């Protein structure tokens, strides 16, 4: 097991390096083709040559390679890696540390994430298990219909409809019925409120979780059906074990292996969903920060945030792989 974790970690470091390098190449070419991002620092003002030079120096854009289209700019890349190694992820255009920005934005993203993950795990496990248990019965058909229906509404459609059609009347109704500081009034706010972070991420999180759960429901159903059909389930029954025990230890336990894999995949999907959700619901989180950074051509911030997100993703992947190995001895002993 220890060697397995070590091997996976080394692979992960390799992956991470590749991600960071590709990101570097892409931004470098963007700078080379689009012109100097240091100008974005001045907004609408027209800076003097010395001002531009000072800003370039500050953001590490003064290397001449940025003027040569096709030059991979390995020098600045090495400098940036050295910075990462010391925990220095650079600053945004206003000079604020990227790590500092992330530290304030990440908790909101985590809250949104927690709501999303709990929603789709609970929905997926519960509805998926029900569908498998009552295969071919009305409950199964209903659940499968629902999951297809959910898929027919992409997350941004759900959010748009919620925000512009439901949120305003709902929050007005809640405010007039329960008072403007009441919990329901906070729940249905059309935009994020840092003082009621949990309340304001709840509904978007539920919607995002719902959207993600559709595929998960089907996966849980399919993997449990496979387990049900497994001969080991018949053996368990032949020992006279209660159906509940068989279900828990031989069906759900065995289907947890593919389910955990799916958790890893869905995690990245939820990350993409979070960027959209935070952007649309004005939630000040990692997605919101990234959204703003891209719009403001804040290259330093984009690179820093994306790198941190990549690190998080890779760590989650390792955790999933290790959980996978812990759940399935056949992988552990390979």
């Amino acid at each position, binding site marked *: 097991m220890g060697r397995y974790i070590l091997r996976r970690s080394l692979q992960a470091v390799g992956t991470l390096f590749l991600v960071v390098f590709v990101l570097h190449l892409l931004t470098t070419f963007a700078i080379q083709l689009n012109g100097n991002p240091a100008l974005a620092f001045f907004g609408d003002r027209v800076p003097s040559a010395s001002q531009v030079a000072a800003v370039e120096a500050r953001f590490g854009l003064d290397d001449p390679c940025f003027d040569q289209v096709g030059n991979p700019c390995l020098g600045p890349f090495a400098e940036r890696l050295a910075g990462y190694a010391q925990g220095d992820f650079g600053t945004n255009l206003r000079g604020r540390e990227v790590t500092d920005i992330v530290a304030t934005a990440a908790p909101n993203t985590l809250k949104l994430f927690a709501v999303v993950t709990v929603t789709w795990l609970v929905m997926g496990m519960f509805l998926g298990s029900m569908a498998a248990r009552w295969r071919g019965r009305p409950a199964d058909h209903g659940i499968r219909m629902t999951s297809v229906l959910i898929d027919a509404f992409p997350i941004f459609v759900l959010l748009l409809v919620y925000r512009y059609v439901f949120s305003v009347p709902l929050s007005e109704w809640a405010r007039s019925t329960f008072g403007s500081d009441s919990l329901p009034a906070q729940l249905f706010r059309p935009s994020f409120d840092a003082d009621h972070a949990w309340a304001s991420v709840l509904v978007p999180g539920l919607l995002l979780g719902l959207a993600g759960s559709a595929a998960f429901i089907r996966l849980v159903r399919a993997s449990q059906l496979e387990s049900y059909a497994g001969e080991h389930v*018949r053996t368990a*029954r032949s*020992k*006279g*074990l*209660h159906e509940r025990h068989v279900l828990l*230890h031989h069906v759900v336990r065995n289907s947890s292996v593919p389910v955990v894999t799916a958790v890893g995949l869905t995690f990245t999907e939820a990350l993409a969903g979070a960027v959209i959700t935070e952007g649309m619901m004005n939630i000040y989180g990692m997605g919101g920060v990234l959204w703003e950074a891209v719009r403001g051509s804040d290259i330093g911030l984009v690179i820093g945030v994306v790198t941190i997100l990549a690190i998080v993703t890779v760590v989650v992947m390792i955790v999933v792989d290790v959980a996978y190995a812990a759940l399935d*001895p*056949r992988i552990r002993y390979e």
Partner: protein
Amino acid sequence: MTAVGQMTTSAPTGGTALRAAAGETLLEVEDLAVEFRTPDGTVRAVDGLSYSVRAGETLAIVGESGCGKSVSSLAVMGLLAPTARITKGAARFRGTDLLALRPKEHRRYCGEHVAMVFQDALAALNPVHTVGYQLGEALRARHGVSRGEARRRAVELLDLVKVPNARQRVDEYPHQFSGGMRQRVMIASALAMDPEVLIADEPTTALDVTVQAQVLRLLAEIQAERTMALVLITHDMGVVAGVADDVTVMYAGRAVEQAPVREIFAAPAHPYTRALLRSVPSLATRGAAAGAGARADAKAAGGRLDVIPGRPPSPGQVPSGCPFHPRCEVAQDVCRTDPPPLAAIPAEALTTAAPRAAACHFALDVLGGARG
């Protein structure tokens, strides 16, 4: 049943639980029929099967693939697929008809009184739990045995089935065992609750010949020691010769011949049984206590394997009359129209007192060697 009498008197009586007296009828299947719902309509996989097995005895159920051996055993255990339906019959354990019980009640007899060993141990054992967990699982869940005690019992069970290094291997997973060892684990798992009846569904088919012999010997030993009733399912007459007391030959979901093992090997009363005996490779080298008649038959066939031409019918397309008639070398016109009932062979045609039955219009001729 002379052979049986010898076996049980010489066997030590099991020390632990209250054992059935040798010779007591433990499992009695009567007129069992199982149907499946399929896209092409309902098919009958088992049709009027009856057998019984006594404490300390082994009944072999023999037949080619697809003749309903597994389905009938799963019916007894209450483990049939949801598409299956038991349309008639009884399966009595010490007089209690298991099939008349509610599923929950039926389940309680499983493992405790009637246990089953499955063919493919790799698939039948759960890959994600240790062998120790699976051996002790029922004891813990049903008898409230503690974790430590269950583990101790698991080690004992592994010792019982002669898995070397039991203390260490109890924490390993099924995929870490060889095929033969895994089948031993499967047997140990079925023995965990000390059942009175063990149904072993082709327990050695997946194994190579030397390992087969070891596993069979082990099963026979344990059975004798515990005065267990053993239902041994196989498609191999060679296996039957070494371990069985009685034989039920199945074809197309029915019993076509039932007789004590010596008699059936000495002189089969059904053309299908005779064909099966001819297809056994070198009975002598397996050390089987086969009757001289079968050996003579094998010799007559030039020592070659004499495979039965054609294939057994699928349950949806059972031929009219005698289901075996398209493949029977002695079929007559009557065989195509009239199904022969499974009928007792008159005592005057038998050489011993043991009753026999066969489902063939010409059973007496076949028995007397007048046909074929």
